[in-house]
């Protein structure tokens, strides 16, 4: 028995030691933190987390809070608009860049640079451009159209569109880049074949290329959507949630209750709802993508 192999635990020991940070992050922070938050969302924790369970009370309160309902509605409207427009604009730009044009690098650099900027910077620039006293409204009025009104950030009905304008400016370049990579992956022979058949180019895009790019579309969809759910900085910088509560979003609600209103469990319940939303987006995708193995 003296020459027994070292026990399994010490097999690959260096690799295991090196993986400790990853294991801690995955298990303690991601898994543990998530379970902790979900667990405490069923309590009545106020200033400090306490384990006195109150069942679904926090969720009942959440869904009867008009501010939360407004947040959800806002996020849904922003999400649908941002998704549709970033996909359409991103795809069209990618298709245009894919025409073997000159200065492709220059154009791509210009379309993508806002993505390097933070949402705070994005929000503040657009806040300035959309400022009614100095920005677009002021300039157009100065040209002689005195009654021109364009003040989305001060109009509760339009504020979401103001956010969408800024969000699209920042994020469309990313969609374009992913789509362009997808277009470049398409076999040249497909194009030759459709040309021989005499199919017009727009029809080729619509009926052949887009269906072929399904995986790219799905991945982009997941990326864009999980970004939308996290929408926070842009709102803070651009509108602060106003006017009134017209541009509140869930992430801001969570922050407000956790760190502002000292109502922890309410914040936990709201963040759990955000998690559920993401799970609804991610799980079907992961299932499709990885054949239900749950592996990446």
């Amino acid at each position, binding site marked *: 028995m003296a020459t027994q192999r070292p026990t399994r635990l010490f097999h690959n020991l260096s690799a295991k030691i090196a993986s400790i940070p990853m294991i801690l992050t995955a298990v303690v922070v991601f898994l543990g933190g998530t379970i902790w938050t979900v667990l405490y969302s069923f309590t009545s924790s106020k200033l400090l987390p306490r384990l006195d369970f109150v069942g679904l009370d926090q969720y009942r309160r959440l869904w009867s809070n008009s501010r939360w309902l407004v947040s959800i509605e806002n996020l849904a409207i922003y999400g649908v608009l941002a998704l549709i427009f970033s996909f359409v604009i991103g795809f*069209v730009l990618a298709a245009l860049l894919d025409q073997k044009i000159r200065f492709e690098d220059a154009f791509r650099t210009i379309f993508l640079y806002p993505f390097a900027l933070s949402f705070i910077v994005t929000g503040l620039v657009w806040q300035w451009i959309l400022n009614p006293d100095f920005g677009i409204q002021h300039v157009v009025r100065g040209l002689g159209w005195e009654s021109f009104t364009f003040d989305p950030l001060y109009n509760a009905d339009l504020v979401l569109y103001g956010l969408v304008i800024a969000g699209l400016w920042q994020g469309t370049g990313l969609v374009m880049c992913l789509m362009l990579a997808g277009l470049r992956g398409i076999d040249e022979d497909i194009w030759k074949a459709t040309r021989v058949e005499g199919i017009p180019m727009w029809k080729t895009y619509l009926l052949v290329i887009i269906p072929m790019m399904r995986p790219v579309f799905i991945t982009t969809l997941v990326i864009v959507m999980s970004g939308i759910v996290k929408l926070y900085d842009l709102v803070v910088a651009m509108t602060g949630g106003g006017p009134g509560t017209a541009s509140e979003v869930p992430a801001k609600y969570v922050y407000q209750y956790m760190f502002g209103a000292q109502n922890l469990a309410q914040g936990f319940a709201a963040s759990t709802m955000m998690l559920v939303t993401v799970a609804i987006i991610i799980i079907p995708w992961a299932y499709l993508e990885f054949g239900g193995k749950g592996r990446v």
Partner: protein
Amino acid sequence: MSDPSTIAGAVLADTAIEADAQPRGARPRRALSRRNVMLYGTLIVVALYYLLPLYVMVVTSLKGMPEIRLGNIFAPPLEITFQPWVKAWAEACTGLNCDGLSRGFWNSVRITVPSVILSIAIASVNGYALANWRFKGANTFFAILIFGAFIPYQVMLYPIVIILSTIGLYGSLTGLVIVHSIFGMPILTLLFRNYFTSVPEELFKAARVDGAGFWGIYFKIMLPMALPIFVVAIILQVTGIWNDFLFGVVYARPDTYPMTVQLNNIVNSVQGVKEYNVNMAATIITGLVPLVIYFISGKLFVRGIAAGAVKG
């Protein structure tokens, strides 16, 4: 939206007719064909739209306040002044502090540099271990890690507050460095794992036969080979961490606030007269670091976001 897409449709249809006989070849074309005018026209208009905010930012930051009040935000400055830049950097106020954005800038540097080094060091070793030294359960941890990338940060905010206050780092720069290293781990590990998996297995086996161990192979073979990936990871992390707002606002105190948080406090403060030129100067200064990295790195940045897009 109907506008650009119709134009695009027209452009595309036109090409199909034109390029009928010789698809996608380098056939000489007339420079001013209808197709080219439409194609480049659309691209140039869109490019101008994308550049407009940057232009407005720069122009506004170089004007004096009287000129801003009277003029047009799109007009170039009549008298160029760098005073707003100086004021934004050294004198702008947040609350009681009036030492300008420079404090936030140095905080951001002190957060970003160690976070980038730490997160990349950890993730590259993790990726290497996952690719070449698979141990039992490794893939399960990795799957959790990747799913973690999609969990809204809000869910993990408070547990991390507890962890950090337990080890006495809540509110400190070190605490923020740890937070950034944690949240950078999924995407970076994925990046490195994918790269190391593509390295030929024989290379690894040959080194094993020669008696090299875990760290020997990492430092002597893998690390030198993966330098381009390290550059991609650095680009990804520097921009990501520099642009972070949420973690800064949650885990830092006013004296350790990173630049983005301080910028937002300066511009959106309700007290005092709004100095738009100073605000815009502050905004550019904050955006300058990621912009410089972006323009220098070019194609590597694109590679980084293709991988890093998962971060959302």
